[in-house]
């Protein structure tokens, strides 16, 4: 591919790729996202390739492996064009008929349509499905229709036109103004206005400035980099132009091998076409990007720690100020934004600040991507306008809680966030409202919890995680978090006392108010927010020594229901620790609680549903 120097050349290339795209008789947009891989997509894909290689037909069929479609619950999945059919839960055995019936003979296969939970109707097009219908997809728009490894696909959808526009029609200052006016806030954590941050960096005089994309985050960053890496790269080049940076890094988690691979490939393609390198679009602007794999440290997502990690040191945060925009990477002014923030930039340049700020709420403009997971029917990645209510997200898009269970809470903002209870389901989701509810946007995790989730256990889980991940630099976090965990351990072991709740709240306040970095300052949130909204569960654990959600192993026991037991011996054979007593055909069996490890093998083995878990401690 030759270097592109002008907007006209780019436009010509786009038309060329578009035309090529229209010539296909059939396109199979097959989801190649990580979650689908985990559901066996590779086998299906291989079968599709083999089958397509076998057929001799004069049809032009394109099998396109796209980024994540978002509807991970239903994977492996594919959208077939021009019929616009969404097939879900595809297995190897379905491949034959997909090709024979749908691709070659234009027939629909009803069995592969999406079936909404607990409803009869089958839906054939993704546009009709509540999960997609209630979303507003901007940064995710192209994820399911382009092949992430093909720069042609990205250009055909108008890719790099925002870069071309920014370089030819905007001064760096004007780019910053546009982003400021759009109201775009950083999507990675506290929601600092992106344009303001850029301006601080722009105003610093330095020979060398850096741009960083913080892709050390969960599901969302992964799926965007995996499915549409050029979008993030384009956003970063525009950002680099605006603040006057000449180099940049994409700091991505090493646990996301597909995202790492796709980003590497995209950078090579961008260099080949001249979008990276020297004199981009003939503007005299030089810029290049590099991938750095984050080596697994939660705290390295904190911006000062992230920079130390790129510098080859331990990822420990340092005091701010100086802020990275003043003194960042190797002492140079550095601007850090996360994946989703960068992904919005090309759209703001192309469609304008006014368009962007017309979406969302007054103080939180645009859309937000969420990873909707946990105890919910439609798990997956969604993009919604800011200001949508939690109820709409969880029940309209997410399809509610499986098995008719009761919604208990939604945890937002990752380990630094908090749990929001059912009373606040009508909360309009934006940066401010989430903070008022003692949670945060974070990078957009939403973990739904139902009646079977124990909130004390959830708090304990986060404290365990944060204890592991605390870098150990400042005492409030290093000492405070383990002490909080100690108390939680005590409570979930059945050894908690009434004074423990006050101690937890006290310690939490200290950790919150005196830790050095954002991780430490928010480390107590999981405890403080569950204490606020679910104090009764803590009290049950302490006073009744019972875990009603049947999660905390020391506050529940396994019981064989005498009337149901047929003394068949199956449970005894399944028990790995020989703690079930009985003789086949004689009296009902019983479990000696002392030896029981709560592994659940007996419940699975019992053919008569005669074994149950009960809250509380067994009286021997």
């Amino acid at each position, binding site marked *: 591919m030759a270097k592109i120097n002008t907007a006209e050349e780019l436009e010509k290339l786009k038309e060329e790729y578009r035309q090529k795209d229209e010539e296909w008789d059939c396109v199979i947009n097959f989801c190649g*996202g*990580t*979650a689908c*891989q*985990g*559901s066996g997509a590779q086998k299906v894909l291989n079968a599709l390739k083999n089958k397509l290689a076998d057929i001799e037909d004069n049809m032009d069929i394109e099998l396109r492996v796209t980024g994540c479609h978002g509807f*991970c*619950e239903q*994977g492996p999945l594919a959208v077939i064009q021009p019929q616009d059919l969404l097939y879900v839960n595809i297995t190897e055995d379905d491949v034959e008929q997909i090709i024979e019936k749908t691709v070659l003979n234009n027939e629909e296969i009803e069995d592969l349509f999406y079936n909404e939970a607990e409803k009869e109707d089958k839906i054939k097009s993704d546009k009709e499905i509540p999960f997609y219908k209630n979303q507003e997809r901007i940064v995710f728009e192209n994820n399911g229709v382009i092949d992430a490894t093909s720069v042609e696909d990205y250009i055909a959808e108008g890719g790099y036109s925002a870069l071309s526009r920014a370089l030819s029609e905007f001064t760096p200052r004007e780019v910053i103004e546009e982003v400021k006016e759009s109201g775009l806030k950083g999507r990675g954590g506290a929601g600092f206005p992106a344009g303001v941050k850029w301006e601080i960096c722009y105003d610093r005089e330095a020979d060398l400035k850096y741009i960083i994309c913080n892709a050390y985050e*969960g*599901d969302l*960053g*992964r799926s965007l980099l995996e499915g549409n890496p050029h979008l993030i790269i384009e956003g970063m080049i525009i950002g680099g132009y605006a603040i006057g940076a000449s*180099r940049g890094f994409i700091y991505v*988690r*090493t*646990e*996301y*091998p597909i*995202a790492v691979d796709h980003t590497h490939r995209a950078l090579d393609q961008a260099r080949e076409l001249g979008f990276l390198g020297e004199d981009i679009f003939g503007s005299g602007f030089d810029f290049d990007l590099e991938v*750095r*794999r984050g*080596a*697994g*440290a*939660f705290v*390295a997502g904190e911006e000062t720690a992230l920079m130390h*990690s*790129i510098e*080859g*040191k*331990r*990822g*420990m945060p340092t005091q701010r100020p100086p802020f990275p925009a003043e003194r960042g990477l*190797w002492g140079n002014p550095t601007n850090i934004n996360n994946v989703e923030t960068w992904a919005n930039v090309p759209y703001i340049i192309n469609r304008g600040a006014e368009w962007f700020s017309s979406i969302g709420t007054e103080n939180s403009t645009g859309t937000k991507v969420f*990873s909707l*997971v*946990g*105890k919910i029917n439609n*798990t*997956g*990645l969604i993009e919604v306008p800011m200001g949508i209510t939690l109820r709409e997200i969880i029940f309209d898009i997410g399809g509610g809680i499986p098995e008719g269970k009761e919604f208990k809470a939604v*945890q937002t903002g*990752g*380990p630094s966030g908090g749990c929001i209870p059912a009373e606040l389901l009508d909360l309009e989701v934006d940066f401010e409202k989430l903070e008022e509810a003692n949670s945060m946007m974070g990078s957009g*995790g939403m*973990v739904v*919890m139902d009646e079977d*989730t124990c909130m004390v256990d*959830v708090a304990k*889980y*986060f404290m365990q*995680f944060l204890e592991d*991940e605390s*870098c150990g630099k400042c005492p409030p976090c290093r000492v405070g978090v383990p002490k909080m965990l100690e108390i939680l351990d005590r409570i979930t072991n059945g050894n908690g006392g009434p004074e423990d709740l006050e101690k937890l709240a006290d310690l939490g306040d200290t950790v919150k108010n005196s830790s050095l970095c954002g991780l430490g300052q928010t480390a107590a949130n999981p405890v403080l927010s569950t204490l606020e909204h679910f104090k009764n569960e803590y009290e049950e654990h302490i006073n009744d020594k019972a875990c009603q959600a049947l999660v905390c192993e020391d506050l529940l026991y396994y019981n064989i229901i005498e009337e149901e037991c047929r003394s068949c011996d199956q449970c005894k054979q399944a028990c*790995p620790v020989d703690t079930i007593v009985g003789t086949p055909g004689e009296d009902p069996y019983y479990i000696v609680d002392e030896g029981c490890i709560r*592994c*659940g*093998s007996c419940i*699975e083995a019992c053919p008569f549903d005669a074994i149950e878990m009960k809250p509380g401690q067994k009286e021997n």
Partner: protein
Amino acid sequence: MDFKKVDEIIARHRGKAEEKIPPLIPILQDIQDEYGWLPEQAFVKTSRQLDIPLVNLYGVATFYNEFRLKPIGNYHISVCMGTACHVQGAPRILSELERKLEIADGEITPDEKYSLETSSCFGCCAIAPAIMVNGEYHGKMDKKKVDELLENIEQEKEDEKVKQNG
């Protein structure tokens, strides 16, 4: 063990680094990709070549979860312990694996066939709980699927033996 690769890796990074010092973490990552872990010899070599004190190297390597100072087994199983996986029962998946393989998180079986570790998030939260075996994702795990998976691996190994002998 042959440590020539370590020299090659360092030389490759030295070639492209624009900063004065070659990037340490990518070098350690590449060494681990090559050997599956960070052997002591590789540390010593890296320390001498980059002129970074061994103690600093060790500090970096032990700070990040990714780096292993112990070898991995032929079948390396990683269990996701992220939030979504946790609420969907990841702890039970881990204890089932620990019980079946008779090793704890971070250990390797004496015959070096299996090793087990936990990860903070695979980023495929929608198919929680998830585990990874030699880089391949397995979603919506339960105890039964864990048992099946281990049986399949054993079967695979049997098949390979037959192939080699026959």
